[in-house]
């Protein structure tokens, strides 16, 4: 058994693994977008830039203060989340009464500013970030070699995704959140501070993006442009899944990562575009998305 569908097992499993890794990032990012969209009704175009900032915070921590990967996992989401909270308080807040499209335009402008500033400072070649020593090396599974760090990324992002799902769907806090998504005025009438909830939700969604950025730093290099094209793919993922359900974002994210990985094996020319093609097909058959409900 050295071949699967005429492809060497090694290559097949290798691409499947890369697909799962990419899928982890798609899931984490689309989850953040969905949570933000649920409550704020805006699509956060800055998400890719905030993912990139997460990676940069990790790099700063390592190179300026000597704090390693594990600290970065904790500090980066909080730091970038705070920046997000400031953005929400000072700018996004003013747009809630207006057409939702203005939120998209504002966050697009912010993404241009942030990415431009980082590019001015660090160029576009990327900075190295090494894998933490505890996760160096890998396991030989017989049919393939599994680097420890990649296994960790998949497992940890699954844990984060399902914790988020659990908090939102199964806890009291989550029920407030879901209620405020349905009808913010009514929830406010019950004495719950909805504006603060909105702010914290935005901070949380942004924090998820930053967390994904830290996890991505050792795999891809830390690059000012790392979020730029990724965010467009994640938008397609969101359209495919529909933003209605948390679980939908997770499943679609991982699923599309795998599809993309397998396309690299069987028809590499289409690996850049396969997700967009899937989006076109889904739109033709089920416009509301796989897990969405059409209003």
């Amino acid at each position: 058994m050295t071949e699967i569908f005429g492809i060497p097992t090694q290559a097949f499993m290798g691409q499947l693994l890369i697909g799962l890794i990419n899928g982890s990032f798609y899931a984490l990012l689309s989850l953040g977008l969905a949570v933000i969209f649920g409550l704020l009704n805006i699509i956060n175009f800055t998400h890719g830039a905030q993912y990139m900032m997460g990676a940069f915070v990790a790099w700063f921590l390592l190179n300026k203060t000597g704090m390693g990967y594990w600290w970065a996992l904790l500090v980066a989401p909080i730091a970038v989340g705070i920046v997000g909270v400031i953005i929400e308080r000072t700018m996004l807040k003013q747009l809630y009464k207006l057409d939702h499209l203005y939120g998209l335009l504002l966050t697009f402008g912010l993404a241009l500013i942030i990415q431009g500033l980082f590019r001015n400072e660090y160029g576009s070649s990327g900075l190295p970030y090494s894998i933490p020593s505890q996760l160096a090396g890998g396991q030989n599974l017989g049919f393939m070699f599994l680097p420890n760090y990649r296994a960790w990324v998949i497992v940890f992002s699954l844990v984060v995704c399902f914790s988020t799902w659990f908090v939102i769907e199964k806890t009291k806090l989550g029920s407030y959140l879901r209620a405020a998504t349905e009808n913010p005025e009514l929830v406010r009438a019950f004495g719950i501070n909805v504006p603060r909830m909105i702010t914290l939700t935005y901070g949380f969604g942004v924090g998820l993006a930053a967390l994904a950025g830290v996890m991505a730093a050792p795999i891809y290099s830390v690059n000012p442009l790392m979020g730029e094209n990724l965010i467009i793919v994640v938008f397609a993922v969101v359209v495919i899944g529909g933003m209605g359900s948390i679980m939908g974002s997770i499943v679609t994210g991982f699923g599309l990562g795998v599809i993309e990985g397998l396309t690299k094996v069987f028809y590499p020319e289409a690996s850049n575009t396969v997700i967009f093609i899937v989006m076109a097909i889904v739109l033709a058959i089920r416009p509301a998305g796989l897990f969405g409900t059409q209003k």
Partner: protein
Amino acid sequence: MSAVLPAVKSGEVGAQRITFVVMLAFFILGPLVMYPVFLMKVMCFALFAAAFNLLIGFVGLLSFGHAMFLGTAGYVCAHAAKVWGFTPELAILAGAAAAGALGLLTGLLAIRRQGIYFAMITLALAQMIFFFCLQAPFTGGEDGIQAVPRGKLLGILDLSNIWNMYATVLVIFVAGFLVIYRTVHSPFGQVLKAIRENEARAISLGYNTTRYKLVAFVLSATLSGVAGATNALVFQLAALNSVHWSMSGEVVLMNLVGGLGTIFGPVVGAFVVLAMENYLATLGFWVTIVQGAIFVLCVLAFRRGIVGELGRLIRKPL
């Protein structure tokens, strides 16, 4: 979007006619004080921005992927002129037809969703076209199609002469602009505005809004294609930057600066944005930062745009 033209009042048409004459005079006399190549670029992008505005301003659809029409038409026009030896007018028509066909395909998919989804879908489809142009054999990848011959218009007028080219671009721009102007003021345009204001009500009045939106989308794509094809001839180049998402962002910016849903806003916006880029060109990535800052500023404090504010000042929509 909420940048809305007030109801038709007497004097509206008069004010718009005067503005039109001013605009025409500007582009005819402009080369006396400005570089003609720069002004040709402005006219191409003004047409592009006006075509984009037809959707956002009058149907309420924000396309975040309009670069795909500009870029595709540019590639097809350049290929037709260089490889197939088409005359310039046929090359431009070929480019526009390609953009229109692409508009039909993508429009059929995109108009199935509204608002934010529409923006995300058009962006994703445009990214697909970008990767296609990056990999397809005839586009020349990173190099693009260079040294496109301008040729002789109708076999007579030699476009390598800059003034012939300038006159041609001016005629194309004015014709495209008038098509949009007529569309907006036609019964068809009124239905589009009704869809923008309240789609459910338009449906209940018996309009097939999906078809109206699709026709508007294809029209906008085709006119963007005319702009893209003309631009390719002016610069004798079709390159990847014209299909990149940042180009789609730029046309949004032009409209935002000039005024969404105004007739002349896109033209003013195109001029301002391109002038700024020219001015900042030596500063590298600062262009992006400044563009981002203008986005933020316009959304937060200047949502009517330049022409929108002017129109409010004279109490007539421009």
